[in-house]
């Protein structure tokens, strides 16, 4: 049932051209060059390492890869990862 509502919200956001991070509660990600990765609306860190960090975004998992990765800041809504980021993937 919950998935159904999520899907409906996604559709509504697409149909009415509304921002998904606000309407559907989807995570919003921002990559600043290759040194900084920002994510709003995360649901927590799943695994943490210097070369790979997995972050929960609700229905998807964000995988940040690179070297010398650091969790520079983190609070209930936002987190920031710095280091040499080589890829950001969704799983």
């Amino acid at each position, binding site marked *: 049932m919950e998935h159904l509502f999520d899907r409906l919200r996604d559709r509504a956001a697409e149909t009415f051209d509304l921002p998904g991070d606000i309407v559907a509660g989807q995570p919003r990600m921002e990559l600043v060059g290759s040194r900084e990765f920002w994510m709003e609306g995360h649901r*927590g*860190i*799943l695994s*943490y390492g*210097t070369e790979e960090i997995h972050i929960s975004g609700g229905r998807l998992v964000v995988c940040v890869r690179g070297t010398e990765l650091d*969790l*520079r*800041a*983190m*609070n209930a809504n936002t987190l920031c990862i710095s280091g040499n980021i080589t890829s950001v993937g969704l799983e």
Partner: protein
Amino acid sequence: MQKLFNRLRGSVTAEVEGPFLERWFNICAAAGLGLWDVQLVEEGRKARVTFSHWRWKEAEELAAKAMCTLAPAGEAGLPSFLRRFRFRYGMIAGAALFVLLLTLFSRLIMVIEVVGNETVSDSAILAELQNHGFGVGSYGPGVDVRDLANEMLLDMEELSFLTVDITGIRARVIVRETEPVPEIEDDTKYADIAAATDGFVADMNVIAGRPAVEEGQAVLKGDVLISSLLFNERSDGSGEIFSTQQVRAKGQVWAVTERTLAASTPLSALRTEGDGETRRRWGLEFLGRRFNFYGNSSNFDRECAKISILYPITLPTGQSLPFGLWQTGWTAWSETPVPVNAESAEQFLRSTLTRRVETLLGDGEILDAQWQTEQREGVITVTLHARCLEQIGTTVELN
């Protein structure tokens, strides 16, 4: 701004260790406990994190929930800085004393400035203020300016107005001097003009009264020069006096006088010479009081010269504060008789006599001067015989 806020709030760096570090990160974030500078120390097991100082207990509880342990690794910011001084009682006492002294000294009078005086000196006014209990070191809020001004005006007749404006450590004493009352001659009293000294009358300027002498006439001290008694003659040319009238005689009588003045000085003098032995001691000047760092044994048992020098603490504006160091030096000395140059001594005596005659003459002048020098028994004597032109008339009131 954020950095400043973080500094004031304080932060703590901790090492968190456990099998589920990510869980601890997540529950901290969910609890609103922000983390930053997360660095892995040991892959998957140990990390170093920084968070707000005041949330340490909460972080510890959350770590226990996530089966992790939390160990402090450092702290920064104002709270930790202040905590470092927790057991430094001396410093706390010093800071408290500093605040106390600052509060106290900011209410004490340090600088007194006197304005508005022309003839009465600053030091005379300050000395009188000191006699009334007001001076450097007085407690400013405790000064009753009105009472002080009233007492000062009673004691110093030269002043007609006085007030004290106290601003912080500065006191500005504003004064107005009493206007001198002009001398008023009482015309209702009859008076003659008499000769103050012997002489030959050279010129007369009679304003009121009857001339009793003529120009060229010799007069002795006390002789009446201008009489207060006027004779009224009949206008028919008979010369008969029909009435007399008495007035207050006024006028000036200039006469050629002779003055003889002498002065002498010994032809040997005692020269004071230090014998090279000097002792210096120090003292402290504090709010107008002097505290010596030595006893009474610092001076010599023979003749010595004592010189005290104050080195005050001075503001950049040039005003001296009532704090400073006193340096007192004692130099032993002895007296040696030395001859005095006769010519120099004569010159000195001549100038002294000339000044003295000029003082006696007032507006008069020296017409002719003859000098006579004599040396006898080690003493040089200079005598001045001066022929002068001076005003010799002086008012003598009649009973």
